[in-house]
Protein backbone atom coordinates (compact mmCIF):
# COMPACT_ATOMS: atom_id res chain seq x y z
CA UNK A 1 0.00 0.00 0.00
CA UNK A 2 1.32 3.40 -0.91
CA UNK A 3 2.18 5.75 1.91
CA UNK A 4 -0.39 8.26 0.64
CA UNK A 5 -3.17 5.70 0.56
CA UNK A 6 -2.14 4.40 3.92
CA UNK A 7 -2.25 7.81 5.61
CA UNK A 8 -5.48 8.77 3.80
CA UNK A 9 -7.02 5.50 4.86
CA UNK A 10 -6.12 5.98 8.50
CA UNK A 11 -7.14 9.63 8.46
CA UNK A 12 -10.50 9.05 6.81
CA UNK A 13 -11.49 6.01 8.86
CA UNK A 14 -10.65 7.93 12.03
CA UNK A 15 -12.70 10.93 10.89
CA UNK A 16 -15.62 8.74 9.87
CA UNK A 17 -15.54 6.97 13.21
CA UNK A 18 -15.48 10.27 15.13
CA UNK A 19 -18.16 11.78 12.89
CA UNK A 20 -20.48 8.79 13.25
CA UNK A 21 -20.50 8.75 17.02
CA UNK A 22 -20.22 12.54 17.18
CA UNK A 23 -23.33 13.04 15.08
CA UNK A 24 -25.29 10.53 17.15
CA UNK A 25 -24.32 12.46 20.29
CA UNK A 26 -25.02 15.73 18.50
CA UNK A 27 -28.49 14.51 17.52
CA UNK A 28 -29.30 13.27 21.00
CA UNK A 29 -28.16 16.52 22.62
CA UNK A 30 -30.02 18.65 20.09
CA UNK A 31 -33.15 16.56 20.50
CA UNK A 32 -33.10 16.69 24.31
CA UNK A 33 -32.39 20.46 24.30
CA UNK A 34 -35.35 21.23 22.03
CA UNK A 35 -37.46 18.81 24.04
CA UNK A 36 -36.60 20.68 27.20
CA UNK A 37 -37.37 24.03 25.55
CA UNK A 38 -40.73 22.75 24.30
CA UNK A 39 -41.65 21.43 27.74
CA UNK A 40 -40.65 24.70 29.29
CA UNK A 41 -42.82 26.57 26.84
CA UNK A 42 -45.78 24.22 27.40
CA UNK A 43 -45.43 24.69 31.15
CA UNK A 44 -45.44 28.45 30.92
CA UNK A 45 -48.34 28.36 28.49
CA UNK A 46 -50.24 26.06 30.84
CA UNK A 47 -49.54 28.38 33.79
CA UNK A 48 -50.86 31.29 31.78
CA UNK A 49 -53.98 29.36 30.71
CA UNK A 50 -54.73 28.21 34.27
CA UNK A 51 -54.22 31.71 35.56
CA UNK A 52 -56.62 33.15 32.98
CA UNK A 53 -59.00 30.25 33.56
CA UNK A 54 -59.19 30.93 37.26
CA UNK A 55 -59.95 34.60 36.63
CA UNK A 56 -62.71 33.91 34.18
CA UNK A 57 -63.82 30.26 34.07
CA UNK A 58 -66.77 30.91 31.86
CA UNK A 59 -64.64 32.13 28.98
CA UNK A 60 -62.61 28.98 28.76
CA UNK A 61 -65.19 26.56 29.98
CA UNK A 62 -66.39 25.84 26.51
CA UNK A 63 -63.29 27.04 24.68
CA UNK A 64 -61.41 24.63 22.58
CA UNK A 65 -58.85 25.42 19.92
CA UNK A 66 -57.55 22.17 18.40
CA UNK A 67 -53.77 22.13 18.12
CA UNK A 68 -53.38 24.80 20.74
CA UNK A 69 -55.62 24.27 23.70
CA UNK A 70 -58.53 22.05 24.70
CA UNK A 71 -60.56 22.07 27.86
CA UNK A 72 -62.65 19.08 28.87
CA UNK A 73 -64.65 18.32 31.89
CA UNK A 74 -62.86 16.22 34.43
CA UNK A 75 -63.77 14.39 37.58
CA UNK A 76 -62.09 14.11 40.97
CA UNK A 77 -61.36 10.37 40.28
CA UNK A 78 -59.28 11.01 37.23
CA UNK A 79 -57.36 13.92 38.71
CA UNK A 80 -53.66 13.42 38.37
CA UNK A 81 -50.39 15.31 38.31
CA UNK A 82 -49.68 17.22 35.06
CA UNK A 83 -48.06 15.01 32.43
CA UNK A 84 -46.53 15.29 28.94
CA UNK A 85 -47.56 13.23 25.96
CA UNK A 86 -46.56 12.86 22.32
CA UNK A 87 -49.51 12.79 20.06
CA UNK A 88 -50.59 13.05 16.46
CA UNK A 89 -53.33 15.42 15.43
CA UNK A 90 -55.06 16.07 12.16
CA UNK A 91 -54.20 19.46 10.79
CA UNK A 92 -57.40 20.50 9.09
CA UNK A 93 -55.72 23.19 7.02
CA UNK A 94 -53.67 20.89 4.89
CA UNK A 95 -55.42 17.72 5.95
CA UNK A 96 -52.34 15.93 7.27
CA UNK A 97 -51.34 14.39 10.55
CA UNK A 98 -48.69 16.23 12.48
CA UNK A 99 -46.63 15.50 15.58
CA UNK A 100 -47.48 17.43 18.70
CA UNK A 101 -46.32 17.45 22.24
CA UNK A 102 -49.04 18.08 24.79
CA UNK A 103 -49.21 18.95 28.47
CA UNK A 104 -52.26 17.80 30.35
CA UNK A 105 -53.26 19.26 33.68
CA UNK A 106 -56.33 18.84 35.83
CA UNK A 107 -57.60 21.95 37.60
CA UNK A 108 -60.37 22.59 40.07
CA UNK A 109 -62.20 25.88 39.63
CA UNK A 110 -65.22 26.66 41.76
CA UNK A 111 -65.55 22.97 42.69
CA UNK A 112 -65.71 22.05 39.02
CA UNK A 113 -63.03 19.81 37.60
CA UNK A 114 -61.50 20.56 34.24
CA UNK A 115 -58.86 18.83 32.22
CA UNK A 116 -56.74 21.27 30.23
CA UNK A 117 -54.49 20.20 27.35
CA UNK A 118 -52.02 22.56 25.75
CA UNK A 119 -50.31 21.54 22.48
CA UNK A 120 -47.14 22.48 20.75
CA UNK A 121 -46.40 21.40 17.22
CA UNK A 122 -43.10 19.55 16.80
CA UNK A 123 -42.88 19.93 13.04
CA UNK A 124 -40.85 23.13 13.19
CA UNK A 125 -38.30 21.85 15.67
CA UNK A 126 -38.08 18.50 13.89
CA UNK A 127 -37.49 20.29 10.65
CA UNK A 128 -34.84 22.37 12.28
CA UNK A 129 -33.06 19.29 13.61
CA UNK A 130 -33.21 17.69 10.18
CA UNK A 131 -31.81 20.79 8.52
CA UNK A 132 -29.04 21.17 11.04
CA UNK A 133 -28.13 17.51 10.71
CA UNK A 134 -28.08 17.80 6.93
CA UNK A 135 -25.90 20.91 6.98
CA UNK A 136 -23.49 19.34 9.45
CA UNK A 137 -23.30 16.19 7.30
CA UNK A 138 -22.53 18.21 4.20
CA UNK A 139 -19.90 20.18 6.06
CA UNK A 140 -18.33 16.94 7.25
CA UNK A 141 -18.27 15.40 3.76
CA UNK A 142 -16.70 18.54 2.34
CA UNK A 143 -14.27 18.50 5.22
CA UNK A 144 -13.23 14.89 4.54
CA UNK A 145 -12.81 15.61 0.85
CA UNK A 146 -10.76 18.65 1.68
CA UNK A 147 -8.59 16.70 4.09
CA UNK A 148 -8.05 14.01 1.46
CA UNK A 149 -7.03 16.50 -1.20
CA UNK A 150 -4.87 18.42 1.21
CA UNK A 151 -3.18 15.23 2.27
CA UNK A 152 -2.51 14.41 -1.37
CA UNK A 153 -1.15 17.84 -2.05
CA UNK A 154 1.05 17.82 1.04
CA UNK A 155 2.26 14.34 0.18
CA UNK A 156 3.32 15.34 -3.32
CA UNK A 157 4.97 18.50 -2.12
CA UNK A 158 6.69 17.05 0.90
CA UNK A 159 7.78 13.72 -0.59
CA UNK A 160 8.98 15.11 -3.93
CA UNK A 161 12.58 15.19 -2.71
CA UNK A 162 12.23 11.63 -1.50
CA UNK A 163 11.36 10.43 -5.01
CA UNK A 164 14.27 12.38 -6.43
CA UNK A 165 16.50 10.45 -4.03
CA UNK A 166 14.93 7.15 -5.11
CA UNK A 167 15.48 7.96 -8.79
CA UNK A 168 19.11 8.79 -8.11
CA UNK A 169 19.61 5.54 -6.22
CA UNK A 170 18.06 3.57 -9.07
CA UNK A 171 20.43 5.01 -11.63
CA UNK A 172 23.48 4.54 -9.42
CA UNK A 173 26.20 2.30 -10.81
CA UNK A 174 28.70 1.14 -8.20
CA UNK A 175 31.32 0.56 -10.89
CA UNK A 176 31.19 4.07 -12.39
CA UNK A 177 29.93 6.56 -9.81
CA UNK A 178 31.99 7.32 -6.74
CA UNK A 179 29.05 8.93 -4.94
CA UNK A 180 25.65 10.48 -5.57
CA UNK A 181 25.13 14.20 -5.48
CA UNK A 182 21.83 14.85 -3.69
CA UNK A 183 20.29 18.32 -3.93
CA UNK A 184 19.72 19.87 -0.50
CA UNK A 185 16.13 19.35 0.55
CA UNK A 186 13.99 21.75 2.59
CA UNK A 187 13.16 18.85 4.81
CA UNK A 188 15.73 18.01 7.43
CA UNK A 189 14.80 14.31 7.58
CA UNK A 190 15.46 13.87 3.87
CA UNK A 191 18.78 15.63 4.16
CA UNK A 192 19.57 13.20 6.94
CA UNK A 193 18.52 10.28 4.75
CA UNK A 194 20.61 11.56 1.84
CA UNK A 195 23.71 12.02 3.92
CA UNK A 196 23.24 8.57 5.48
CA UNK A 197 22.83 7.09 1.99
CA UNK A 198 25.91 8.84 0.73
CA UNK A 199 27.89 7.57 3.68
CA UNK A 200 26.62 4.06 2.98
CA UNK A 201 27.43 4.33 -0.72
CA UNK A 202 30.96 5.48 0.00
CA UNK A 203 31.46 2.51 2.35
CA UNK A 204 29.86 0.05 -0.06
CA UNK A 205 31.89 1.29 -2.97
CA UNK A 206 35.07 1.05 -0.95
CA UNK A 207 34.22 -2.56 -0.09
CA UNK A 208 33.29 -3.27 -3.67
CA UNK A 209 36.52 -1.82 -5.01
CA UNK A 210 38.53 -3.67 -2.38
CA UNK A 211 36.95 -6.96 -3.35
CA UNK A 212 37.42 -6.16 -7.01
CA UNK A 213 41.03 -5.24 -6.49
CA UNK A 214 41.55 -8.28 -4.30
CA UNK A 215 40.15 -10.69 -6.86
CA UNK A 216 42.10 -8.90 -9.56
CA UNK A 217 45.33 -9.14 -7.64
CA UNK A 218 44.87 -12.48 -5.95
CA UNK A 219 45.35 -14.28 -9.21
CA UNK A 220 48.68 -12.60 -9.68
CA UNK A 221 49.67 -12.62 -6.02
CA UNK A 222 49.03 -16.34 -5.60
CA UNK A 223 50.12 -17.47 -9.02
CA UNK A 224 53.54 -15.90 -8.59
CA UNK A 225 54.57 -17.97 -5.54
CA UNK A 226 53.02 -21.01 -7.18
CA UNK A 227 55.08 -20.30 -10.27
CA UNK A 228 58.19 -20.05 -8.16
CA UNK A 229 57.50 -23.39 -6.50
CA UNK A 230 56.87 -24.96 -9.88
CA UNK A 231 60.04 -23.60 -11.48
CA UNK A 232 62.22 -24.50 -8.49
CA UNK A 233 60.85 -28.04 -8.58
CA UNK A 234 61.64 -28.23 -12.27
CA UNK A 235 65.18 -27.05 -11.69
CA UNK A 236 65.55 -29.51 -8.84
CA UNK A 237 64.35 -32.27 -11.13
CA UNK A 238 67.06 -31.44 -13.66
CA UNK A 239 69.79 -31.57 -11.02
CA UNK A 240 70.93 -35.11 -11.52
CA UNK A 241 71.54 -37.56 -10.08
CA UNK A 242 68.28 -37.96 -8.22
CA UNK A 243 67.09 -41.17 -6.65
CA UNK A 244 63.72 -42.45 -7.81
CA UNK A 245 62.33 -41.67 -4.39
CA UNK A 246 63.50 -38.05 -4.54
CA UNK A 247 62.19 -37.58 -8.06
CA UNK A 248 58.83 -38.94 -7.02
CA UNK A 249 58.69 -36.54 -4.08
CA UNK A 250 59.39 -33.60 -6.36
CA UNK A 251 56.72 -34.74 -8.74
CA UNK A 252 54.22 -34.99 -5.89
CA UNK A 253 55.03 -31.42 -4.90
CA UNK A 254 54.50 -30.34 -8.50
CA UNK A 255 51.21 -32.16 -8.73
CA UNK A 256 49.86 -30.57 -5.56
CA UNK A 257 51.15 -27.24 -6.73
CA UNK A 258 49.29 -27.55 -10.04
CA UNK A 259 46.16 -28.50 -8.20
CA UNK A 260 46.42 -25.46 -5.95
CA UNK A 261 46.97 -23.29 -8.96
CA UNK A 262 43.89 -24.62 -10.76
CA UNK A 263 41.85 -24.29 -7.59
CA UNK A 264 42.90 -20.67 -7.23
CA UNK A 265 42.05 -19.85 -10.82
CA UNK A 266 38.63 -21.44 -10.57
CA UNK A 267 37.77 -19.80 -7.25
CA UNK A 268 38.86 -16.42 -8.54
CA UNK A 269 36.66 -16.95 -11.57
CA UNK A 270 33.69 -17.91 -9.38
CA UNK A 271 34.23 -14.85 -7.20
CA UNK A 272 34.52 -12.60 -10.21
CA UNK A 273 31.22 -13.92 -11.53
CA UNK A 274 29.64 -13.36 -8.11
CA UNK A 275 30.92 -9.80 -8.11
CA UNK A 276 29.53 -9.24 -11.59
CA UNK A 277 32.95 -8.39 -12.93
CA UNK A 278 32.09 -9.52 -16.43
CA UNK A 279 30.01 -6.64 -17.72
CA UNK A 280 31.08 -6.94 -21.37
CA UNK A 281 28.57 -8.54 -23.67
CA UNK A 282 29.26 -9.47 -27.23
CA UNK A 283 27.67 -11.70 -29.80
CA UNK A 284 29.30 -15.10 -29.64
CA UNK A 285 28.85 -18.06 -31.93
CA UNK A 286 28.42 -21.29 -30.00
CA UNK A 287 29.42 -23.29 -33.03
CA UNK A 288 32.69 -21.37 -33.31
CA UNK A 289 33.63 -22.11 -29.71
CA UNK A 290 32.81 -25.79 -30.03
CA UNK A 291 34.82 -26.10 -33.23
CA UNK A 292 37.76 -24.32 -31.59
CA UNK A 293 38.01 -27.03 -28.95
CA UNK A 294 36.67 -29.98 -30.89
CA UNK A 295 40.04 -31.09 -32.20
CA UNK A 296 41.60 -31.28 -28.74
CA UNK A 297 38.63 -33.10 -27.32
CA UNK A 298 38.48 -35.48 -30.27
CA UNK A 299 42.12 -36.38 -29.78
CA UNK A 300 41.50 -36.93 -26.08
CA UNK A 301 38.45 -39.02 -26.82
CA UNK A 302 40.15 -41.13 -29.47
CA UNK A 303 42.80 -42.19 -27.01
CA UNK A 304 40.16 -43.98 -24.99
CA UNK A 305 38.32 -45.06 -28.11
CA UNK A 306 35.43 -42.78 -27.30
CA UNK A 307 33.29 -41.76 -30.23
CA UNK A 308 32.67 -38.01 -30.27
CA UNK A 309 29.98 -36.79 -32.60
CA UNK A 310 29.04 -33.17 -33.12
CA UNK A 311 25.88 -32.42 -35.04
CA UNK A 312 25.08 -28.82 -35.69
CA UNK A 313 21.41 -28.29 -36.44
CA UNK A 314 21.21 -24.64 -35.55
CA UNK A 315 23.33 -21.53 -35.58
CA UNK A 316 23.23 -20.39 -31.98
CA UNK A 317 24.44 -16.95 -31.02
CA UNK A 318 24.52 -15.80 -27.43
CA UNK A 319 25.35 -12.51 -25.78
CA UNK A 320 27.91 -12.65 -23.04
CA UNK A 321 31.55 -12.50 -22.09
CA UNK A 322 33.69 -14.55 -24.49
CA UNK A 323 35.80 -16.03 -21.69
CA UNK A 324 32.79 -17.14 -19.67
CA UNK A 325 30.92 -18.69 -22.60
CA UNK A 326 34.10 -20.51 -23.48
CA UNK A 327 34.53 -21.79 -19.91
CA UNK A 328 30.89 -22.85 -19.86
CA UNK A 329 31.02 -24.97 -23.00
CA UNK A 330 34.49 -26.37 -22.41
CA UNK A 331 33.54 -27.49 -18.92
CA UNK A 332 30.50 -29.34 -20.17
CA UNK A 333 32.35 -31.10 -22.98
CA UNK A 334 35.33 -31.80 -20.72
CA UNK A 335 33.07 -33.51 -18.21
CA UNK A 336 31.62 -35.65 -20.97
CA UNK A 337 35.12 -36.84 -21.86
CA UNK A 338 36.44 -37.08 -18.33
CA UNK A 339 33.59 -39.06 -16.80
CA UNK A 340 33.23 -41.36 -19.78
CA UNK A 341 34.10 -45.01 -20.06
CA UNK A 342 36.50 -46.60 -22.54
CA UNK A 343 34.80 -47.27 -25.89
CA UNK A 344 32.08 -44.87 -24.86
CA UNK A 345 30.19 -42.23 -26.80
CA UNK A 346 29.68 -38.48 -26.67
CA UNK A 347 27.02 -36.66 -28.63
CA UNK A 348 27.03 -32.89 -28.92
CA UNK A 349 23.95 -31.59 -30.62
CA UNK A 350 22.67 -28.09 -31.24
CA UNK A 351 19.09 -27.38 -32.14
CA UNK A 352 16.94 -24.26 -32.03
CA UNK A 353 18.20 -22.50 -28.93
CA UNK A 354 19.58 -25.49 -27.16
CA UNK A 355 22.75 -27.49 -26.91
CA UNK A 356 22.56 -31.07 -25.69
CA UNK A 357 25.63 -32.92 -24.55
CA UNK A 358 25.09 -36.58 -23.78
CA UNK A 359 27.67 -39.15 -22.87
CA UNK A 360 28.03 -42.69 -21.70
CA UNK A 361 29.54 -43.13 -18.30
CA UNK A 362 29.02 -44.90 -15.06
CA UNK A 363 25.68 -46.64 -15.34
CA UNK A 364 24.13 -44.82 -12.46
CA UNK A 365 22.04 -41.71 -12.38
CA UNK A 366 23.73 -38.81 -10.62
CA UNK A 367 21.87 -36.87 -7.96
CA UNK A 368 20.46 -34.06 -10.04
CA UNK A 369 20.05 -31.85 -7.00
CA UNK A 370 23.63 -32.04 -5.79
CA UNK A 371 25.31 -32.18 -9.16
CA UNK A 372 25.83 -28.42 -9.45
CA UNK A 373 27.03 -27.90 -5.85
CA UNK A 374 30.59 -26.93 -5.11
CA UNK A 375 33.05 -29.70 -4.25
CA UNK A 376 30.59 -32.42 -5.25
CA UNK A 377 32.52 -35.31 -6.72
CA UNK A 378 30.77 -38.33 -8.08
CA UNK A 379 33.81 -39.99 -9.56
CA UNK A 380 36.65 -41.26 -7.45
CA UNK A 381 39.06 -39.17 -9.48
CA UNK A 382 41.23 -37.31 -7.01
CA UNK A 383 42.47 -34.73 -9.44
CA UNK A 384 38.99 -33.43 -10.03
CA UNK A 385 38.31 -30.22 -8.12
CA UNK A 386 34.55 -30.71 -8.08
CA UNK A 387 34.07 -27.13 -9.17
CA UNK A 388 33.43 -27.55 -12.89
CA UNK A 389 29.67 -27.91 -12.80
CA UNK A 390 29.17 -25.28 -10.11
CA UNK A 391 31.06 -22.92 -12.40
CA UNK A 392 28.77 -23.98 -15.24
CA UNK A 393 25.73 -23.32 -13.06
CA UNK A 394 27.03 -19.93 -12.00
CA UNK A 395 27.59 -18.82 -15.57
CA UNK A 396 24.13 -20.09 -16.55
CA UNK A 397 22.58 -18.14 -13.67
CA UNK A 398 24.46 -15.01 -14.69
CA UNK A 399 23.13 -15.11 -18.24
CA UNK A 400 19.80 -16.75 -17.36
CA UNK A 401 20.52 -19.87 -19.38
CA UNK A 402 18.71 -23.02 -18.29
CA UNK A 403 20.83 -26.05 -17.54
CA UNK A 404 19.32 -29.42 -16.75
CA UNK A 405 20.52 -32.95 -16.22
CA UNK A 406 18.85 -36.27 -16.84
CA UNK A 407 19.83 -39.90 -17.21
CA UNK A 408 18.18 -41.76 -20.07
CA UNK A 409 19.04 -44.89 -22.04
CA UNK A 410 22.38 -45.20 -20.22
CA UNK A 411 23.28 -41.67 -21.26
CA UNK A 412 24.04 -38.75 -18.97
CA UNK A 413 22.37 -35.83 -20.70
CA UNK A 414 23.10 -32.20 -20.03
CA UNK A 415 20.89 -29.78 -21.86
CA UNK A 416 21.66 -26.09 -22.02
CA UNK A 417 18.86 -23.78 -23.11
CA UNK A 418 20.01 -20.31 -24.13
Amino acid at each position, binding site marked *: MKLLNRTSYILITTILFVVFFGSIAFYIILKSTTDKEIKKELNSRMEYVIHEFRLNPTVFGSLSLPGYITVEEGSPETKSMPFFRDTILLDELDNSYKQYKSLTADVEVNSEFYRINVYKSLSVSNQLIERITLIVTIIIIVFILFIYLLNRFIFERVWADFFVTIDKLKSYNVDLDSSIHFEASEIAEFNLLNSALNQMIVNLREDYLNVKEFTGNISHEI*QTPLSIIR*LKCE*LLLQSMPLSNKQ*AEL*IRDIQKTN*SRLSRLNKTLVLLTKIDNKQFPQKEKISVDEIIRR*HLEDFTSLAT*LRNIELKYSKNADIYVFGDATLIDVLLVNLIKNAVLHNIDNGKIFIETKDNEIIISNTGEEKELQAKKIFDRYTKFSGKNDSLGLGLSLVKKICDLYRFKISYKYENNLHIFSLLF
Partner: protein
Amino acid sequence: MKILIVEDEIALQESINSYLKVEGYNCESALTFNEGQEKICMYPYDCLLIDVNLPDGNGLDLIKLAKSQNVTAGIIVISARETIDDRITGLNFGADDYIVKPFHLSELNARIYSLLRRIHFKGEDQIVFNEIEVNATERLVMINNSPLDLTKKEYDLLLYFLSNKNRVLTKESICEYLWGDHADNAGTLDFVYTHIKNLRKKMIDKGGQNYIHTMYGVGYKFTTK
Protein backbone atom coordinates in the same frame (compact mmCIF):
# COMPACT_ATOMS: atom_id res chain seq x y z
CA MET B 1 71.43 -15.96 -28.54
CA LYS B 2 70.66 -13.13 -26.15
CA ILE B 3 67.54 -13.07 -24.09
CA LEU B 4 66.22 -10.33 -21.82
CA ILE B 5 63.98 -11.40 -18.97
CA VAL B 6 61.83 -8.57 -17.59
CA GLU B 7 60.38 -10.01 -14.41
CA ASP B 8 60.05 -8.36 -11.01
CA GLU B 9 59.96 -11.58 -9.03
CA ILE B 10 63.61 -12.41 -8.39
CA ALA B 11 63.01 -16.09 -7.68
CA LEU B 12 61.15 -16.52 -10.96
CA GLN B 13 63.66 -14.57 -12.93
CA GLU B 14 66.57 -16.56 -11.47
CA SER B 15 64.88 -19.87 -12.22
CA ILE B 16 64.21 -18.91 -15.82
CA ASN B 17 67.75 -17.63 -16.08
CA SER B 18 69.38 -20.78 -14.79
CA TYR B 19 67.23 -23.07 -16.96
CA LEU B 20 67.90 -21.09 -20.13
CA LYS B 21 71.63 -20.79 -19.43
CA VAL B 22 71.95 -24.56 -19.63
CA GLU B 23 70.39 -24.33 -23.08
CA GLY B 24 73.25 -22.05 -24.08
CA TYR B 25 71.36 -18.77 -24.09
CA ASN B 26 72.95 -15.63 -22.86
CA CYS B 27 70.45 -14.24 -20.39
CA GLU B 28 70.12 -10.81 -18.94
CA SER B 29 67.49 -9.65 -16.57
CA ALA B 30 65.59 -6.52 -15.68
CA LEU B 31 63.63 -6.33 -12.43
CA THR B 32 61.65 -3.17 -13.17
CA PHE B 33 59.88 -1.48 -16.01
CA ASN B 34 62.51 1.25 -16.12
CA GLU B 35 65.39 -1.17 -16.19
CA GLY B 36 63.65 -3.09 -18.96
CA GLN B 37 63.07 0.09 -20.90
CA GLU B 38 66.70 1.05 -20.60
CA LYS B 39 68.04 -2.33 -21.67
CA ILE B 40 65.65 -2.70 -24.59
CA CYS B 41 66.78 0.67 -25.92
CA MET B 42 70.48 0.09 -25.34
CA TYR B 43 71.22 -3.50 -26.28
CA PRO B 44 70.11 -5.81 -29.05
CA TYR B 45 68.36 -9.01 -27.99
CA ASP B 46 67.04 -12.01 -29.85
CA CYS B 47 64.18 -12.54 -27.51
CA LEU B 48 62.35 -10.53 -24.87
CA LEU B 49 60.44 -12.22 -22.06
CA ILE B 50 58.13 -9.64 -20.56
CA ASP B 51 55.97 -9.98 -17.49
CA VAL B 52 52.79 -7.93 -17.81
CA ASN B 53 52.56 -7.03 -14.12
CA LEU B 54 55.56 -4.94 -13.19
CA PRO B 55 55.77 -2.79 -10.06
CA ASP B 56 56.39 0.44 -11.93
CA GLY B 57 54.51 -0.08 -15.16
CA ASN B 58 52.63 -2.31 -17.52
CA GLY B 59 54.68 -4.84 -19.45
CA LEU B 60 52.49 -4.28 -22.48
CA ASP B 61 53.90 -0.76 -22.74
CA LEU B 62 57.36 -2.29 -23.05
CA ILE B 63 56.16 -4.17 -26.11
CA LYS B 64 54.90 -0.92 -27.59
CA LEU B 65 58.25 0.66 -26.84
CA ALA B 66 60.17 -2.21 -28.42
CA LYS B 67 58.00 -2.04 -31.53
CA SER B 68 58.46 1.72 -31.79
CA GLN B 69 62.24 1.24 -31.57
CA ASN B 70 62.05 -1.31 -34.40
CA VAL B 71 63.49 -3.96 -32.15
CA THR B 72 63.68 -7.22 -34.11
CA ALA B 73 63.64 -9.46 -31.06
CA GLY B 74 60.88 -12.00 -30.64
CA ILE B 75 58.61 -11.12 -27.76
CA ILE B 76 56.95 -13.52 -25.35
CA VAL B 77 54.51 -12.11 -22.83
CA ILE B 78 54.35 -13.69 -19.39
CA SER B 79 50.92 -13.10 -17.94
CA ALA B 80 49.13 -14.07 -14.78
CA ARG B 81 45.87 -12.94 -16.23
CA GLU B 82 43.49 -15.46 -17.51
CA THR B 83 40.95 -13.92 -19.76
CA ILE B 84 41.11 -14.36 -23.49
CA ASP B 85 41.06 -10.58 -23.81
CA ASP B 86 44.36 -10.14 -21.99
CA ARG B 87 46.05 -12.67 -24.23
CA ILE B 88 44.70 -11.08 -27.37
CA THR B 89 45.76 -7.63 -26.14
CA GLY B 90 49.31 -8.93 -25.68
CA LEU B 91 49.38 -10.31 -29.20
CA ASN B 92 47.79 -7.19 -30.66
CA PHE B 93 50.50 -5.08 -29.08
CA GLY B 94 52.96 -7.02 -31.17
CA ALA B 95 54.00 -9.91 -28.94
CA ASP B 96 54.79 -13.14 -30.81
CA ASP B 97 53.59 -15.50 -28.12
CA TYR B 98 52.29 -15.54 -24.59
CA ILE B 99 52.64 -17.89 -21.66
CA VAL B 100 50.39 -17.91 -18.62
CA LYS B 101 51.66 -18.30 -15.06
CA PRO B 102 52.26 -20.80 -13.67
CA PHE B 103 54.13 -22.35 -16.55
CA HIS B 104 56.77 -25.03 -16.93
CA LEU B 105 60.32 -24.00 -17.73
CA SER B 106 60.44 -26.70 -20.36
CA GLU B 107 57.39 -25.20 -22.03
CA LEU B 108 58.86 -21.71 -21.94
CA ASN B 109 62.04 -23.14 -23.38
CA ALA B 110 60.14 -24.85 -26.19
CA ARG B 111 58.34 -21.63 -27.04
CA ILE B 112 61.57 -19.62 -27.07
CA TYR B 113 63.22 -22.26 -29.21
CA SER B 114 60.35 -22.23 -31.67
CA LEU B 115 60.15 -18.43 -31.74
CA LEU B 116 63.86 -18.01 -32.35
CA ARG B 117 63.76 -20.59 -35.14
CA ARG B 118 60.90 -18.74 -36.76
CA ILE B 119 62.76 -15.45 -36.59
CA HIS B 120 66.16 -16.66 -37.70
CA PHE B 121 65.32 -19.29 -40.30
CA LYS B 122 62.52 -17.70 -42.17
CA GLY B 123 61.12 -20.12 -44.74
CA GLU B 124 63.48 -22.88 -43.84
CA ASP B 125 62.81 -23.74 -40.26
CA GLN B 126 64.66 -27.00 -39.78
CA ILE B 127 65.71 -29.00 -36.77
CA VAL B 128 68.18 -31.78 -37.25
CA PHE B 129 69.03 -34.25 -34.54
CA ASN B 130 71.05 -37.28 -35.60
CA GLU B 131 68.82 -39.20 -38.00
CA ILE B 132 65.77 -37.03 -37.23
CA GLU B 133 64.98 -34.10 -39.50
CA VAL B 134 62.08 -31.81 -38.78
CA ASN B 135 60.81 -29.20 -41.20
CA ALA B 136 58.85 -27.03 -38.80
CA THR B 137 57.44 -24.81 -41.52
CA GLU B 138 55.70 -27.68 -43.22
CA ARG B 139 55.39 -29.82 -40.11
CA LEU B 140 57.20 -32.70 -41.78
CA VAL B 141 59.39 -35.23 -39.99
CA MET B 142 61.93 -37.45 -41.72
CA ILE B 143 63.89 -40.29 -40.18
CA ASN B 144 66.78 -41.55 -42.24
CA ASN B 145 65.27 -39.53 -45.10
CA SER B 146 62.00 -41.36 -45.05
CA PRO B 147 58.89 -39.48 -43.98
CA LEU B 148 57.38 -40.23 -40.61
CA ASP B 149 53.61 -40.08 -40.42
CA LEU B 150 52.65 -38.46 -37.11
CA THR B 151 49.40 -37.16 -35.67
CA LYS B 152 49.32 -33.51 -34.68
CA LYS B 153 49.84 -34.31 -31.01
CA GLU B 154 52.67 -36.71 -31.74
CA TYR B 155 54.37 -34.06 -33.83
CA ASP B 156 53.98 -31.49 -31.06
CA LEU B 157 55.31 -34.00 -28.59
CA LEU B 158 58.40 -34.72 -30.69
CA LEU B 159 59.09 -31.01 -31.06
CA TYR B 160 58.73 -30.57 -27.33
CA PHE B 161 61.30 -33.27 -26.73
CA LEU B 162 63.68 -31.83 -29.34
CA SER B 163 63.37 -28.43 -27.66
CA ASN B 164 64.19 -29.91 -24.27
CA LYS B 165 66.87 -32.47 -24.96
CA ASN B 166 68.52 -34.08 -21.95
CA ARG B 167 65.84 -32.66 -19.69
CA VAL B 168 63.49 -34.51 -17.42
CA LEU B 169 60.00 -33.71 -18.65
CA THR B 170 57.19 -34.49 -16.25
CA LYS B 171 53.94 -35.89 -17.51
CA GLU B 172 52.22 -32.75 -16.29
CA SER B 173 54.41 -30.45 -18.30
CA ILE B 174 53.94 -32.59 -21.43
CA CYS B 175 50.24 -32.53 -20.78
CA GLU B 176 50.08 -28.80 -20.47
CA TYR B 177 52.16 -28.34 -23.55
CA LEU B 178 49.95 -30.62 -25.63
CA TRP B 179 46.56 -29.62 -24.33
CA GLY B 180 47.04 -26.15 -22.97
CA ASP B 181 43.71 -25.06 -21.55
CA HIS B 182 42.44 -28.59 -21.35
CA ALA B 183 45.40 -29.91 -19.42
CA ASP B 184 43.47 -29.82 -16.17
CA ASN B 185 41.40 -32.58 -17.63
CA ALA B 186 42.65 -35.23 -15.26
CA GLY B 187 42.28 -37.99 -17.84
CA THR B 188 44.96 -36.47 -20.03
CA LEU B 189 47.83 -37.69 -17.85
CA ASP B 190 47.17 -41.27 -18.86
CA PHE B 191 47.18 -40.30 -22.51
CA VAL B 192 50.70 -38.98 -22.34
CA TYR B 193 51.84 -42.54 -21.96
CA THR B 194 49.82 -43.64 -25.00
CA HIS B 195 51.14 -40.81 -27.13
CA ILE B 196 54.72 -41.51 -26.12
CA LYS B 197 54.32 -45.23 -26.75
CA ASN B 198 52.96 -44.52 -30.24
CA LEU B 199 55.63 -41.96 -31.08
CA ARG B 200 58.41 -44.20 -29.87
CA LYS B 201 57.04 -47.12 -31.88
CA LYS B 202 56.69 -45.10 -35.08
CA MET B 203 60.24 -43.80 -34.79
CA ILE B 204 61.75 -47.20 -34.12
CA ASP B 205 59.73 -48.68 -37.01
CA LYS B 206 61.45 -46.22 -39.34
CA GLY B 207 64.84 -47.35 -38.05
CA GLY B 208 65.31 -44.53 -35.59
CA GLN B 209 66.88 -44.92 -32.19
CA ASN B 210 64.90 -44.99 -29.00
CA TYR B 211 65.68 -41.59 -27.54
CA ILE B 212 62.70 -41.33 -25.22
CA HIS B 213 63.59 -42.76 -21.87
CA THR B 214 61.11 -43.33 -19.12
CA MET B 215 62.13 -41.86 -15.78
CA TYR B 216 60.25 -44.00 -13.36
CA GLY B 217 57.55 -42.14 -11.44
CA VAL B 218 58.56 -38.78 -12.85
CA GLY B 219 58.29 -38.50 -16.58
CA TYR B 220 60.44 -38.81 -19.66
CA LYS B 221 63.78 -37.70 -21.00
CA PHE B 222 64.86 -37.32 -24.61
CA THR B 223 68.53 -38.25 -24.70
CA THR B 224 71.07 -40.23 -26.65
CA LYS B 225 72.47 -41.78 -23.52
